[in-house]
């Protein structure tokens, strides 16, 4: 009887959960327990504080599931034995399927109109990618390998799917940490950006009112995704999965004759993929992979990436404002980090703070969607170098 009880105890997760099996900075820690508590903290942040809940809930729950001892949800199939559930679902990340599908859905929800109306905003989208490369540099300096540094840098693109695609291809061991850093900072955009925007601009600049954007014809909106696809993919084939899917989604939307497809992409498919993507990415945050000194470095580098991206956009915005005689409000440069539409909303809010009659939202949407293209191109470049 005692033997049966003992065996039951040993086969239950409770026997393992308190084991000090992880060492961080030389201190032994009960890894599983720490990760479970961390997962609960993220669930709290997602549900109670509303931090990117659509992604952070599945990510945190995936983290919780994978850290429950003996559940073996990420088990690799070996011999005749089958693998764990999350292992199979994770193949969509490993093979680079989910992130481009998310881009397909994002494309169907993106209006490139403000960008087409003001093509200069593309440059602001490019300048905000500065964060990626500064952070890449910093990560190399801190001793990360090239592919790892590229994956950490891409956090500065502020674009979840791009970061996940690049990391799953270059440094899958860092996927959990990078996903959590990227999505947490995206939720913190309203906290991170305003002080930087304020520090780099003068009060007069922040008050600048911009001219109304010209109306964009349907023909232009239809031609845009086709031309961009042909040009970017010819130039940079590595950006094909992201740009191709983004532009297909956008073409479907702008064509205007397949409303059911648009509806399916914007809603059903988007949320289906989000669940699989979030859950399996979270499942990469097991104790042995997450509780390491690298994770802290990634969290720190991530915030640098975001800040530098914002600074890059605002500084180019300032330059543009100087060159066009004060027609451009430099604040819109901050929206060049992708984080659609959060960054654009921050710009609108900040602009209105200094000039209540100012409406910068549509002007900021231009750099914002340009940032999506910019970070996809940057990801293509990094894949070219490190794949």
């Amino acid at each position, binding site marked *: 009887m005692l033997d049966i009880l003992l065996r039951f105890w040993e086969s239950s997760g409770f026997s393992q959960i308190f084991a000090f099996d992880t060492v961080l900075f030389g201190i032994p820690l009960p890894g599983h327990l720490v990760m479970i508590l961390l997962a609960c903290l993220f669930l709290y942040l997602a549900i109670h504080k509303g931090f990117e809940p659509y992604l952070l809930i599945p990510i945190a729950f995936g983290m919780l599931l994978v850290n429950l001892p003996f559940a073996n949800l990420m088990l690799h199939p070996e011999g005749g034995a089958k693998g764990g559930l999350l292992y199979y679902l994770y193949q969509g990340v490993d093979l680079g399927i989910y992130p481009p599908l998310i881009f397909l859905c994002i494309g169907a929800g993106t209006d490139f109109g403000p*960008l087409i109306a003001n093509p200069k905003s*593309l440059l602001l989208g*490019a300048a905000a990618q*500065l964060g990626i490369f500064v952070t890449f540099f910093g990560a*190399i300096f801190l001793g990360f390998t090239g592919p790892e540094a590229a994956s950490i840098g891409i956090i500065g693109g502020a674009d979840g799917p791009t970061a996940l695609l690049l990391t799953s291809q270059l440094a899958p061991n860092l996927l959990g940490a990078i996903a959590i850093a990227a999505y947490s900072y995206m939720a913190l955009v309203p906290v991170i950006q305003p002080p930087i925007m304020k520090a780099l601009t003068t009060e007069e600049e922040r008050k600048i009112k911009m001219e109304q954007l010209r109306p964009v014809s349907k023909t232009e909106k239809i031609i845009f995704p086709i031309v*961009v696809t042909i040009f970017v993919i010819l130039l*940079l084939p590595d950006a094909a999965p992201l740009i191709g899917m983004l532009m297909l989604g956008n073409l479907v939307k702008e064509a205007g004759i397949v409303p059911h497809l648009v509806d399916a992409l914007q809603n059903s498919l988007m949320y289906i993929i989000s669940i699989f993507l979030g859950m399996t990415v979270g499942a990469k945050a097991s104790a042995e992979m997450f509780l390491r000194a690298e994770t802290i470095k990634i969290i720190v580098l991530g915030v640098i990436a975001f800040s530098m991206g914002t600074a890059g956009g605002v500084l180019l915005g300032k330059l543009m404002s100087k060159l066009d005689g004060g027609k451009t409000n430099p604040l819109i440069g901050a929206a060049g980090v992708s984080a659609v539409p959060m960054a654009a909303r921050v710009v609108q809010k900040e602009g209105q703070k200094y000039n209540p009659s100012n409406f910068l939202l549509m002007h900021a949407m231009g750099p914002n969607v340009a940032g999506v293209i910019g970070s996809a*191109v940057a990801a293509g470049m990094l894949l070219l170098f490190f794949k």
Partner: protein
Amino acid sequence: MFGEYLTMGQASIVALFSITVVFLVLLLISYMIQLIAAIIAKMQKPKEAPAVKSAPAAEEPAVEEEPADDSHLVAVITAAVACCLGKEPGSFVVKSITPLNTESDWSRVSRTSALH
């Protein structure tokens, strides 16, 4: 292309080259947008006169010109018409908006009560 660990020199090459390419790509896309806009404008110029005529006028019959201070109301009505027609607000022109007072008080009361 590089070994696993990069020297700072190699890292600078990667960073500088990549950011330049990102800028160039987006700059070229912005030129393309301008080119497309110019071509479309050229193609549409001869057609412009009939295009204005064929733009569907507002549903309401035209009787009276709007004073400028009602621009807010016009914007709201335009948005509502666009929503009902399922078209972009820029794709048609609201020429005039006139209140219709042809209905009886009874029908207005019944409509109001149906709304609540």
